[in-house]
């Protein structure tokens, strides 16, 4: 079984530029999450999808962050314009069963904003 795929692995941009991250979850996983992990901190949930619908985006900075999962499979997280404090690893995770299933994580996309 293929794992959660994320790209790019690394991205360096200047502040005020835009960036997009892509995630392809494990086949058949209905629930998809985007987490932000700032250096030295635990992952913070940005947005959770169930199929192509948003379940929770309460911690997504909607003035600059957006995410979509149009066909209920892969997902894109966009930041526009980026700020210095957006430097972090963006982790995508997926889950098979709604209530008790294990989260499977991708290797993450490391963003550096200069």
């Amino acid at each position, binding site marked *: 079984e293929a794992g959660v795929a994320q790209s790019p692995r690394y991205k360096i941009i200047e502040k005020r530029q835009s960036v997009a991250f892509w995630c392809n979850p494990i086949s058949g996983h209905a629930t998809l*999450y985007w987490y932000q992990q700032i250096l030295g901190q635990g*992952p*913070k*949930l940005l947005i959770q999808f169930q199929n192509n619908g948003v379940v929770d985006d309460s911690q997504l900075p909607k003035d600059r962050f957006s995410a979509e999962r149009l066909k209920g499979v892969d997902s894109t997280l966009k930041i526009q314009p980026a700020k210095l404090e957006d430097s972090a690893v963006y982790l995508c*995770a997926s889950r098979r069963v709604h209530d008790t299933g294990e*989260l499977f*994580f991708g290797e*993450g996309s490391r963003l550096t904003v200069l």
Partner: protein
Amino acid sequence: AQSVTQPDIHITVSEGASLELRCNYSYGATPYLFWYVQSPGQGLQLLLKYFSGDTLVQGIKGFEAEFKRSQSSFNLRKPSVHWSDAAEYFCAVAPRDDKIIFGKGTRLHILP
């Protein structure tokens, strides 16, 4: 609000010594509880989980954790650590509305 506390930011133990990483949570009912491990440059891998039943949970790589309701704790243990256990460990809770909240992590260093 739900929260997860990992009081130790860094822990250093000698190879072969025993290990205990602490985790406390704040929530009105018993949530689902997890321990994940993250090696440098890698994603998170599940070590073990507790949903219900036996309060002592066995995981992968020789780890175990004990759920103590009275203390709102879910501490991770290993009787004898190996150099390859050096990594960052995250405790996570999932109140039963499906949101998973992570602690800030404990970085484990192993002395040869």
